């Protein structure tokens, strides 16, 4: 087994967290995020520009000689924790992590530099529900043109370039202008999904799709755990705050032991998720034990994030059922995240192979 992972946050990582949190406090307040879900621009472009262009965060995973910041998954994970806390509608996970990782597996330096700078965003045209190593749909490559329809493509809407796997085993870069991107009605209001239809679009071959898609989805799944940690942490903190304030029967509701125990249990789950998410981020950064670390984090994270959001709703009671209160944004994201990049069950099945606990 490998050396011990570093499960803490460095001072630089804490400083990065503080900067991102400040930025999101200015851009992504809850009423604004709720209003945006019913507007024509599902992404908060001002927030994205400030994160990607202003702070240079879109290039964290890209080496400096390729136009990026030369940081690692550990820093990207901290950014995702904060984006999760704010349910921020920005294409960070999909463009700066998943599409970027796919390009890192290919020979695509020019495009990589454009994504790293934040000048362009990219989306991997693989359904959000596919687990690393799972089967995904491809388009037909015929006479130099691409034909087919792909569904549940996260953040395709607004992306400049789509990374499309084809039936010849290649991964192709397709300009969004030459594809038809049709929004789908997504359960998660803060991560738009779309259908991508290619009808003779031209694509530029980037490299081997299987290798690129696997690398991209593994990083996506591993770092999604940090987003789920951020979701869970916000819902727990906000629920605790509310229950200290909310009074019924002439006392704070948070003083009732039945609720105290539920919140303490939830806290324990969040503490556990933090260790699992840090471990996945560190393993992706060092490359040691990454398959197991990602599968463990994803087998664990979904139930925590969903449980935290469900508890937040129940313990906020009536106000939690309203469109006005942001808890529904967290519940919808948490539930969608439990399918994104593979369900907990899919990751457990992968673990059964990895750690030799075979099925009957």
């Amino acid at each position, binding site marked *: *087994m490998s050396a*011990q*992972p*570093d*499960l*803490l946050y460095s001072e630089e990582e804490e400083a990065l967290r503080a900067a991102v949190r400040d930025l999101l406090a200015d851009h992504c307040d809850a009423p604004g995020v709720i209003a945006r879900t019913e507007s024509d621009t599902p992404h908060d472009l001002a927030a994205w520009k400030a994160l990607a262009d202003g702070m240079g965060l879109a290039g964290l995973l890209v080496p400096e000689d390729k136009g990026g910041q030369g940081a690692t998954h550990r820093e990207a994970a901290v950014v995702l924790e904060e984006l999760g806390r704010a349910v921020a509608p920005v294409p960070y996970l999909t463009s700066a992590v998943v599409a970027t990782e796919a390009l890192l597996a290919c020979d695509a330096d020019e495009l990589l530099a454009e994504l790293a700078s934040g000048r362009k965003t990219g989306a991997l045209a693989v359904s959000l529900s596919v687990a690393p190593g799972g089967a995904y749909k491809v388009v037909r490559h015929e006479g130099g043109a691409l034909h087919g329809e792909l569904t549940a493509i996260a953040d395709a809407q607004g992306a400049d370039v789509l990374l499309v796997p084809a039936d010849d085993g290649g991964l192709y870069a397709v300009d969004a202008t030459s594809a038809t991107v049709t929004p789908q009605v997504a359960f998660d209001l803060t991560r738009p999904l779309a259908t991508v239809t290619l009808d003779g679009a031209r694509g530029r071959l980037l490299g081997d799709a299987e290798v690129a898609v696997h690398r991209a989805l593994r990083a996506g799944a591993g770092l999604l755990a940090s987003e789920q940690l951020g979701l869970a942490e916000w819902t727990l903190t906000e629920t*605790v705050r509310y*229950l*200290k304030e909310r009074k019924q029967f002439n*006392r*704070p509701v*948070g*003083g009732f*032991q039945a*609720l*105290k*125990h539920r*919140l*303490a*249990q939830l*806290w*324990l789950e969040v*503490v*556990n*998720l*933090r*260790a*699992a998410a*840090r*471990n996945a981020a560190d393993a992706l950064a060092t490359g040691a034990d990454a398959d197991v670390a990602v599968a*463990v984090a994803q*087998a*664990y994270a979904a139930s925590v994030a969903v449980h935290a959001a469900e508890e937040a709703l129940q313990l906020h009671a009536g106000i939690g059922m309203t469109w006005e209160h942001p808890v529904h944004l967290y519940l919808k994201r948490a539930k969608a995240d439990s399918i994104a990049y593979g369900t907990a069950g899919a990751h*457990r*099945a992968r*673990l*059964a192979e990895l*750690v*030799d*606990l*075979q*099925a*009957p």
Partner: protein
Amino acid sequence: MTDAAELKRRTAELLAAHPLATTDRLDFLKARFDAGLAWVHYPQGLGGLNAPRSLQAVVDAELEAAGAPDNDPRRNGIGLGMAAPTILRYGTEEQKQRFLRPLWVGEEVWCQLFSEPGAGSDLAALGTRAVREGDSWVVNGQKVWTSGAHNSRWAILIARTDPDVPKHAGITYFLCDMTDPGVEVRPLRQITGEAEFNEVFLTDVRIPDTCRLGEVGDGWKVAQTTLNNERVAIGGMRLPREGGMIGPVSKTWRERPELRTQDLHQRLLKLWVDSEVARLTAERLRQQLVAGQPGPEGAGMKLAFARLNQEISGLEVEVRGEEGLLYDDWTLRRPELVDFTGRDAGYRYLRSKGNSIEGGTSEVLLNIVAERVLGLPAEPRTDKDVAWKDLSR
């Protein structure tokens, strides 16, 4: 400042002055204590060198490499882990000189006389009475859940010295000689069949005032040092993957394909993930402690491991199918050491039921997390300003 090189030098000197081939085990341990290499963070003259605690590993590694005997710490867990730090903090100079050396070398094993039939989670309500008579205290009462009482020479004891003040204020802490004729130890048989614990009956036990630890009435404060050290001992360990209760069942699963079913497979995988995540959480806690940034995570570790031990061992009984209907041995025995992952699945299942009770019930620990970590309102306290003698019982 004592650094690693200095400790290595002193360890080499110890080994040179007391050749292992010709030195009796106990003599070597005493020499090690006198050289300040027993617990290096303790003061000079009391087995230490005022060195950083983290450097103990340097000494231990050198001595292990040389094949030196150790003090068999598992035999005296309560002495080393709980009595010693409390004596160090509150003991008089005489008490420290008298007790710490024989404790560390293992000549004198210690047990803990805290819990009572009527004082479990509400330990401060304890009713064992200590009444002053001249230079002594006369103690009467009953203690329970005393591990190792039958092998112990000494006990740390808390007793009520003033029933007329609120419960926390009327307690005093004593060091009790277990050979006093008024001490009667009876095995307490538990659901596993064995008697790992005892009931201890105290009848007119005479304790000299020189064996009082801390001031009269300060016993609750002194006991906090003991209990905090119990929690430190539970956190801070480093486990390899599959190092805990999940290890034996994973091994069985790999070796016995005929036992596998779909249902058991799903449950096993889920618990395997939970175990690995709990292991990572413990490792993260350890890294925080090493980095000098202790977090509140420790409060949750005991809760997590209690639940996991119970669920995993419960699954393991089922995994064994027909063998799960059997039990290895119900004979009443008094084990000297307890191994939670020892013996058969059935034993592990029954023994782990105690994990959510011993050292603070899971219900009390959840209150502690809710109040101290999350800052939620405390439970209503109707006993705060009531004299102990007027409490309902």
